[in-house]
């Protein structure tokens, strides 16, 4: 299959290309940019006039809900959502049922995803067995099976002795740990940012210090054990500042933020809107501004969807009892574009955060359109605005705090390995 994408504006952040250039694809690879290669006869031509041609998005966190939670979502539904959102590589956390803590489960998941052939999936293995924070998982064998890093998802290790050992063991083999910083005792039972809104609504709060304390512990141990740490879903101004200082000191630390947290604050909970119940919680306006600044100056390396499809029943409950999370694969690109437009960030920089920067953190080879790279491509109209209608999302999870809101940018074609997985 040979494809010619013509008349588009190619933006490839990794190679610092932003130019009107055609892309030529054969045998699943980018075979030429700009000039038609000798003897190239396209089977299909995609007219990308007025569109941007970019590397397929790399998402640092998307829950696919398999195995075990198929009533919330399935691989099929969520991989279709990924394709519709222009996401071609995604990391999935291990908090499934059973937990992804055995090589066999990783192999099965990768195999099933491969059969769908809609996106590349990169599982993050459980750092401890069953995410219980007690016994280390078989990290070497899990890596052999396809894990790209290890995480506790939303179940932090309470015992700092075990945390230290987990850091040491992972570092033995050079693995990256993906940790969402939240001190579990301070966060216990909380459902919203411990501030004005939680106080008014009578919701138990999670103080910003819960994140700061956890980051301080993680960074301190990482400095000692020389561990590569990726801090997931920063939510506080304090957290951003800690990462900024750690990077200045030369620690091997990276960080991400969810697209939701760049747009929303605690005030978006409104009258107990369960779709605004997220982990970590939406925080103050000041925190949101610090997160935005962090992404702009590179303190925060990547933006992710934190895609978490939740079934209606689990959201149709009083706020604190509802399950946290928002569907996000189809909104990552438009939320990033809208955010970049609002903050006057060049398109190249914004796209870097959801392509090559995320790929660098995962240590994977995608997220760019170099010659002979896999032809994972998103073709989108950056000016097209559209309204989020939850029932029209491909994801089985209709849970989004952005329902009814205007989005900027619509994917028209997604290509994975040189074949079209989505067409608008």
């Amino acid at each position: 299959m040979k494809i010619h994408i013509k008349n588009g504006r190619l933006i490839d952040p990794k190679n610092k290309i932003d130019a009107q250039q055609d892309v030529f694809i054969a045998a699943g690879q980018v075979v030429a940019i700009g000039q038609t290669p000798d003897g190239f006869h396209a089977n299909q031509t995609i007219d990308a006039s007025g569109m941007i041609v970019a590397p397929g998005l790399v998402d640092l966190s998307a829950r696919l809900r398999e195995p075990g939670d198929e009533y919330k979502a399935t691989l099929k539904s969520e991989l279709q959502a990924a394709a519709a959102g222009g996401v071609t590589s995604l990391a999935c956390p291990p908090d499934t049922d059973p937990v992804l803590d055995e090589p066999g489960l990783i192999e099965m998941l990768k195999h099933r995803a491969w059969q769908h052939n809609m996106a590349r999936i990169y599982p993050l293995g459980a750092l401890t067995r069953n995410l219980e924070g007690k016994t280390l998982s078989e990290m070497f064998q899990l890596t052999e099976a396809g894990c790209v890093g290890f995480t506790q998802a939303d179940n932090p290790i309470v015992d700092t002795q075990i945390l230290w050992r987990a850091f040491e063991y992972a570092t033995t083999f050079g693995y990256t740990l993906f940790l969402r910083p939240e001190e579990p005792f301070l966060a216990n039972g909380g459902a919203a940012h411990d501030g004005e809104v939680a106080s008014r609504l009578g919701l138990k709060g999670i103080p910003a210090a819960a994140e700061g304390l956890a980051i301080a512990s993680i960074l301190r141990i990482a400095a000692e054990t020389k561990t590569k740490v990726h801090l997931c879903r920063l939510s506080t101004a304090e957290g951003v500042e800690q990462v900024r200082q750690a990077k200045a000191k030369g620690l091997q630390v990276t960080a991400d933020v969810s697209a939701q947290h760049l747009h929303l604050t605690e005030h978006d909970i409104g009258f107990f809107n369960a779709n605004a119940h997220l982990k970590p919680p939406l925080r103050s306006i000041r925190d949101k501004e610090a997160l935005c600044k962090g992404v702009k100056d590179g303190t925060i390396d990547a933006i992710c969807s934190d895609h978490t499809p939740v079934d209606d029943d689990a959201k149709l409950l009083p706020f604190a009892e509802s399950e946290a999370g928002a569907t996000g694969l189809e909104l990552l690109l438009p939320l990033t574009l809208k955010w970049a437009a609002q903050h006057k960030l060049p398109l190249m920089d914004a796209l870097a955060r959801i392509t090559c920067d995320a790929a660098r953190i995962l240590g994977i080879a995608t997220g760019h359109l170099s010659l002979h790279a896999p032809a994972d491509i998103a073709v989108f109209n950056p000016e097209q605005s559209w309204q989020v209608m939850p029932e029209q999302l491909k994801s089985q999870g209709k849970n989004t705090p952005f329902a009814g809101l205007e989005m900027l940018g619509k994917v028209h074609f997604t290509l994975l390995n040189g074949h079209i997985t989505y067409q608008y």
Partner: protein
Amino acid sequence: MYNPQLDQHKKLKHLLTIEGLPKAILQQILDTAETFIGINEREVKKVPLLRGKTVCNLFFENSTRTRTTFEIAAKRLSADVLNLNVSTSSQSKGETILDTVNNLIAMHADIFVVRHNQSGAAHFIAQHVPEHVSVINAGDGRHAHPTQGLLDVFTIRRYKPDMHNLRVAIVGDVLHSRVARSEIHALTTLGVPEVRVIAPKTLLPADVEKLGVQVFHDMQTGLKDVDVVMMLRLQNERMSGALLPSAQEYFNTYGLTPEKLALAKPDAIVMHPGPMNRGVEIDSRVADGAQSVILPQVTYGIAIRMAVMTLLAGGINT
């Protein structure tokens, strides 16, 4: 701004929280309650304002007192009353709140009086009932207990009619108290210029001053020259642990004794939403003393609940 409690004509549709309700509506409820005071003192205590209507007391959390006052209020308005303690029936069988509510709607209840241990439960139910059904929040988690807030300001207005010239102190566990939140909103909406909260730091929510109150941590300065002292109940399970060391120490520091009350104005009134913990948050000499208006609060509570149900059911005009 959108207000889920008002219909398109800006009339009260549900009573979920005092926050965001216009002053005129609060005054309308208080004035309507005034007219019911007389009825409650008559030989025949019934009026036919809610005849043919069904009021359903839907209690997901145990309560005798509040449920009883709602029941009396509904019966004095000639409504049919259904009492459901869901914590002991459906929920334990795994039925969701919405299933329970939908079943009761199918039985044609007109007003739901809801109590639930989760903040936002009343809003949640109000979002999912049909147009003709009204919801009254009888307490949701730590969030709101609007009829309690209303009966408290009603009581204050009866004893201290000039609301624009009052200093009010709310004492105790503000953090966990839906009563305190509703009192604060009711007082500030009605124009009370100075509302104080007095509590140790462990019993105050974050950024509490943003609710429009002044914060004090000791009774000596906090009670100075106040006109009204509103005590809060301290739950048994919170008396000893990470929030407070012991009930005795709490009584020593924040319990309302005659000596501490003497710091307030000589004609200050003392209130408590009940049930009281004598010797923990309040000294019996104060609870039963001349300045206590705790029992009148209960009496007025019935009139307030009658007023709210009447307004929700279509006003007194019908």
